[in-house]
């Protein structure tokens, strides 16, 4: 029997005023990937903040098989901060709760292994700000890998990444799924959502949850994105493209 990694029932969340997210119910089994689609302000980041325990839900129930790891967007990091790729990966060990102690030898080894896994062993000593965009994204993935979490929350992990890094990151995702971890990936890329096991569509409430075949249709996507969605009809069928504004907060 497959273990449930994440289960959410009738979740509601907000920041004191109007609810930002309402009536969200979904589940992911170990080894499953869920693509979280939605417009800016649709509630993707809020959902992640609730799952991480940073934000107390206003309604509903959450069950997690363990503390999730989070991969932030690189544009939220400070490129002038004097830390190397290895330093950033080592930060992942802080999730173990021993923040007042210096990193142990085994923690530094775990960080080095994580960097090797994302193909960055050779640049471990390079400053984070001097890495390419794709390398920075892989470094943040290494920081998440170090946490050895059963559930990973990934905020637009392929946004602005070069094709080689994207292939490497997707390869690591496949390995993580094979290891029985669950992945929740916030994305604007409707087309890439077709490769996930499940798709969760949010627009301040849950529009749909199901397999790609059940959810990635014109009616659901228009209910999710409204006028931010452009539907293209070409020889190969129908393609949906979203307009990205790169705003954050909800």
């Amino acid at each position, binding site marked *: 029997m497959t273990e449930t990694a994440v289960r959410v029932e009738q979740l509601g969340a907000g920041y004191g005023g109007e609810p930002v997210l309402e009536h969200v119910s979904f589940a992911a089994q170990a080894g499953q990937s869920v693509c979280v689609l939605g417009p800016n302000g649709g509630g993707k980041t809020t959902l992640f903040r609730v799952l*991480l*325990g*940073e934000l107390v839900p206003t309604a509903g129930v959450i069950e997690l098989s363990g*503390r999730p*790891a*989070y991969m*932030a967007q690189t544009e*939220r*990091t*400070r490129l002038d*901060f*004097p*830390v*190397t790729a290895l*330093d*950033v990966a080592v*930060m*992942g060990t*802080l*999730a173990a*709760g021993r*923040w*007042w102690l*210096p*990193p142990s030898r085994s923690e530094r080894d775990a960080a080095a292994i994580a960097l090797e896994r994302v193909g960055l062993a050779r640049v471990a000593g390079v*400053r*984070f700000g001097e890495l390419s965009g794709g390398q920075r994204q892989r470094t*943040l993935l290494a*920081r998440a890998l170090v*946490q050895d979490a059963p559930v990973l*929350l990934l905020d637009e992990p392929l946004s602005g990444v070069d094709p080689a890094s994207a292939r490497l990151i997707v390869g690591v995702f496949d390995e993580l799924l094979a290891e029985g971890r669950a992945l929740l990936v916030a994305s604007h890329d409707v087309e890439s959502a077709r490769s996930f096991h499940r798709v969760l569509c949010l627009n301040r409430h849950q529009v749909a949850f199901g397999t790609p075949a059940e959810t990635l249709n014109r009616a659901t996507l228009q209910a999710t994105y409204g006028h931010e969605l452009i539907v293209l009809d070409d020889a190969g069928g129908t393609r949906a493209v979203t307009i990205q504004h790169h705003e954050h*907060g909800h």
Partner: protein
Amino acid sequence: MPSPFDLADLPFLREALLELALLAVTGGVLGAWIVLRRLAFFSHAAGSATFPGLVAADASGVSPTIAGIAVALGYAGGVQRTSRVAGASARDHAEGTALLLVAALATGVILASDVFESGAVVERLLFGTLLGLDTADLVLSAVVATLAAAGALALGRTWSAVGFDPDGARALGLPAARADLLLLLLVAVAAVAAIPAVGALLVTAIYVLPPAAARMLTGSIRGLVACALGVALAEGVVGLYLAYWLDVPAGPPVAVLGALVCLVLAAVRGRRPA
């Protein structure tokens, strides 16, 4: 031109030298985090914001150190509270710092105009003195240096994670808000400790200029701490000698020297080919 050995031979200069050495330790350890966490304005403001407390203490006979620490701690707590109310996305505390600084300075000016009869006391508070240092000042500086070192050892990883990526740090389950509050409190107390030597207006000469110069010389956090400590110590010794020679308070020469070092380093870096 006086002998440099007077710094070691004359008791009041020896005490001033020891005071500046202790402040240099804090300037290296804590100053690195002040620069990395963009708290330069806060460190300046924390010193200046103690002004009303020092005025009131002088008038009422309360220890100026205790009054200064009380005001500085209250100021630090108020800044963090104001920043949190202003928005969780705020990466620095600039707006809250400015708001409460204006309030503190206005209160201090009103108090000073009614309380002080001599401008000399105000000048000593604002620019420091070599002659007025006593054992209590040295003890406070030693305690602050110890607290700064202990704080950096215990919280350095958290400060680093939060400074690099606040969202990612919170997701790691780190006590980010409490660690930030402790950093602000440490900086506030450190600012009070520096007031007797360099004055409330020039605490940045110890806590910001040396690490700002060190930032241009090194690319790691450990290197920044070590280099800032060395620069603060060197600028303190030379500044003290200049103050003795020119018969002026210690704060201005240390500050001018620190600013010159930063300007020269920036000019050299600017000339270096990319």
